[in-house]
């Protein structure tokens, strides 16, 4: 899509694509500067090649300077510093290209590479460590937000596991391919009169390729099976491991005796097929987890600390130490737990306690990270996390709940527990029959038993579950729903009760303009123009109500009070009641903003919470799925009652403490219900952990997002419905797949027991059933996720 560089009728900013003043090319000076920089670098083909995605944050520079980056950089042996950053606002490949080209032309940078899959930028440079701020500033000036990752915490064993699986897959693929090639020669030789010496030679070569490969590539299964057996359990990997090891050992004995049939090809391809399932399963989940980490990283911001000399500087919230004083301006989110030292204000604690109405707070009041300061600037003294009772309580409750939750046994393992003994008994009986009754030699009887094991080795069964899961996980991820837990889909399929938190879950996480219909559109536009240059929560809510607005020129922020600018007829103000409001107007129950200008009465904007647009239809759809819906909220009972009535939910409870909430969830579980908890607040953390399965929006508190099994993005509630529907569909497909592979076994096992299975028949049957199961799994792609019916 090419974008016109000349101002069009609707006036769209040539850089960020948002609304611009009618006669301007740009919405703000930041965008104009970014455009000029890109032109000057000769990179303006960016504008012709990019494709702006409305769902992604537009590339409008916000002029923020990020501090404290140097601390998170690592320095290599050659003096190169490296920083890993999350990139917000990546629209398409052109943005990646722009960032990389920009960095390659910046002196000092040795490497700047964006990973589009994980949306991370790896930045390396030579020179002073403090250059980090300047280099990151180069990209932030283009309108992309960059947030540093703490590399020590991030580069976990996850990637190691992925690479190990990939290496195992490569080795297994090599072995399976080559052994199969040799096997085809052997099978053909049967008809073309191959001599026994040649056959034995080929068997030996197969053994030499297959055995080391299986020993290496089969480790993921052997390790998992051994771990399960040591704990006295069984899982899908136990029959797989026994099958692979026995078949390989039998084939080796057969080769040494110069026998006719060996099964090295089957064993190697079995490992190869199963590893494909493992690798895909792992990468789908790793990607979902990386996205969840990204969302969390983008949420954390810097805090402004006041040093003993009285000077302010910003630093990451994670590096604040107890006793430090922190300045929290109007509209800022408090980054740490602590207590107010000076200043009186109104605090919005909806993300912490679930209370929707802001409350007044003064010196001595305890505040928690995540609370938003709606009033005047305050100074907070940081306390240790352990001292903050609410957070500490929540963490303790979460730990207790997770211990009680117990281990969920996945469908595949449940099937394996019943299936494995039957299969092994079958093989043993086959051996006894041929050896004791039919009078065959020990070797011949063992070989027949091995054929039974090969045929029943749960290849299709072990592919049945991961194949469906991978497709479902990918499908949900494209819809902005991140599955963090491997067993989440299976647990979700069993859900018959959904418990919602109210504030921030049923309602939108941000405040909403309530009296928009009473306000003249011209007033709203004017106010939005002022608000566009502020990051205050109410300004953002105002902008959301007015739609994108061009930034009014010459707006000055009066810290703690509001915004002002000089208009044609005098000063225009937007801010608090004492600053810009009508002091005699009736007091509002919620937060408010006032707009004043010379010669006109002040206009009041009232804000409050509003249910998500599709909350009602989602509740109805859940009821149609025979799912019981209820609300558990920490907010005042009156507010909860109002919301319950609005959404026609008959079961609700307000004023719940975190302990109450956990108790209610546990009671439901005691009554045999499978509970899905959907919540966002810090106070929801414990019951997210206590419920059978849990979902939280991406606007949730850090702790809750970490605990939840599923995280969804966006302003709608439909993802909750979509994930439940997908889970049920996934379960159906998994059962079909397991059914299919059992039917195949029932058909083939009699052949194996009667000794009619030859290696080529085993190989063909195994591949055939695996392909059938895979084909069936692809039906998960057709599911319509967000539809109501």
């Amino acid at each position: 899509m090419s974008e016109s560089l000349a101002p069009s009728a609707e006036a769209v900013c040539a850089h960020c694509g948002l609304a611009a003043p009618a006669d301007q090319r740009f919405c703000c000076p930041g965008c104009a500067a970014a455009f000029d920089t890109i032109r000057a670098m000769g990179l303006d083909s960016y504008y012709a090649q990019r494709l702006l995605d409305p769902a992604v944050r537009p590339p409008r520079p916000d002029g923020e300077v990020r501090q404290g980056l140097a601390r998170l950089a690592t320095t290599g042996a050659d003096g190169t510093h490296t920083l890993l950053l999350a990139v917000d606002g990546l629209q398409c490949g052109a943005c990646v290209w722009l960032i990389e080209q920009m960095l390659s032309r910046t002196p000092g940078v040795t490497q700047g590479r964006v990973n589009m899959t994980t949306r991370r930028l790896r930045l390396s440079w030579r020179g002073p460590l403090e250059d980090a701020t300047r280099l990151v500033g180069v990209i932030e000036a283009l309108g992309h937000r960059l947030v540093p990752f703490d590399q020590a915490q991030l580069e976990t064993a996850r990637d190691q596991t992925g690479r190990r699986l990939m290496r195992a897959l490569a080795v297994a693929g090599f072995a399976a391919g080559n052994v199969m090639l040799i096997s085809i020669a052997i099978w053909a030789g049967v008809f073309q009169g191959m001599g026994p010496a040649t056959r034995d030679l080929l068997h030996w070569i197969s053994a030499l390729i297959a055995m080391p490969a299986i020993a290496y590539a089969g480790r993921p299964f052997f390790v998992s099976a051994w771990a399960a057996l040591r704990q006295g359990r069984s899982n899908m990997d136990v029959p797989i491991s026994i099958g692979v090891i026995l078949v390989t050992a039998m084939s080796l004995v057969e080769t040494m005796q110069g026998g006719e049939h060996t099964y090295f090809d089957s064993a190697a391809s079995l490992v190869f097929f199963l590893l494909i399932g493992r690798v895909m399963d792992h990468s789908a989940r790793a990607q979902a987890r990386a996205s969840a980490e990204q969302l969390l990283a983008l949420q954390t911001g810097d805090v402004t600390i006041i040093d003993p000399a009285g000077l302010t500087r910003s630093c990451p919230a994670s590096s604040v130490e107890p006793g430090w004083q922190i300045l929290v301006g109007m509209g800022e989110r408090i980054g740490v737990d602590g207590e107010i030292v000076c200043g009186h204000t109104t605090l919005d604690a909806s993300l912490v306690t679930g209370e929707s109405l802001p409350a007044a707070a003064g010196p001595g009041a305890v505040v928690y990270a995540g609370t938003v300061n709606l009033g005047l600037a305050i100074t907070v003294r940081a306390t240790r996390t352990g001292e903050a009772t609410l957070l500490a309580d929540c963490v303790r409750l979460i730990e207790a709940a997770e211990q009680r939750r117990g281990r969920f046994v996945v469908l595949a393992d449940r099937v394996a527990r019943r299936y494995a003994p039957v299969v092994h008994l079958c093989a043993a009986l086959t051996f006894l029959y041929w050896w004791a009754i039919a009078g065959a030699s020990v070797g011949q009887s063992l070989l027949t038993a091995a054929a039974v094991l090969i045929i029943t080795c749960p290849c299709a069964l072990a592919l049945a579950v991961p194949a469906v899961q991978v497709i479902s996980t990918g499908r949900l991820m494209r819809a902005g729903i991140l599955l963090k837990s491997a067993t989440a889909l299976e647990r979700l399929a069993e859900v018959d009760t959904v418990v919602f938190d109210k504030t921030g879950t049923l309602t939108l996480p941000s405040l909403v303009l309530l009296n928009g219909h009473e306000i003249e559109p011209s007033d709203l536009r004017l106010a939005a123009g002022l608000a566009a240059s502020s990051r205050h929560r109410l300004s953002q809510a105002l902008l959301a109500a007015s739609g994108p607005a061009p930034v009014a020129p010459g707006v000055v922020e009066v810290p703690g009070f509001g915004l002002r600018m000089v208009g044609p007829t005098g000063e225009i103000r937007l801010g608090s009641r004492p600053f810009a409001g009508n002091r005699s107007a009736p007091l509002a129950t919620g937060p408010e903003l006032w707009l004043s200008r010379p010669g006109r009465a002040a206009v009041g904007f009232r804000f409050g919470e509003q249910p998500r647009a599709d909350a009602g239809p989602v509740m109805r759809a859940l009821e149609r799925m025979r799912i019981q819906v209820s609300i558990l909220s920490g907010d005042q009972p009156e507010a909860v009652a109002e919301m319950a009535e609005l959404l026609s939910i008959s079961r609700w409870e307000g004023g719940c403490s975190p302990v109450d909430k956990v108790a209610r969830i546990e009671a439901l579980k005691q009554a045999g219900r499978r509970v899905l908890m959907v919540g966002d607040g810090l106070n929801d953390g414990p019951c997210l952990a206590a419920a059978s399965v849990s979902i939280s929006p991406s606007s949730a508190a850090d702790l809750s997002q970490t605990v939840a099994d599923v995280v969804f993005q966006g302003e709608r509630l439909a993802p909750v419905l979509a994930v439940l529907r997908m889970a049920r569909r996934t379960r159906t497909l998994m059962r079909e797949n397991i059914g299919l592979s059992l039917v195949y076994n029932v058909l083939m096992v009699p052949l194996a027991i009667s000794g009619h299975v030859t290696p080529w028949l085993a190989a063909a049957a195994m591949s055939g059933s695996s392909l059938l199961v895979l084909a069936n799994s692809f039906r998960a792609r057709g599911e319509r996720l967000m539809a109501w019916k």
Partner: protein
Amino acid sequence: MEMMLFLLLLSLVLGGGGLALFLWALRSGQYDDLDGAASRILFDDPPRQPAADTTPEERRRRA
């Protein structure tokens, strides 16, 4: 018979070469960003600037 041994060896060498190449690609991070690789091909690399991996001082010294 000699022909078959030769072919067997050849297939193993070719297969092993493929395996080695794959492991090398994996180690050098070529499978880390499949989405990025797909879209990177669409953009031209402008002529390389005077070696971007040197510091300004080094560049001056060279010039």
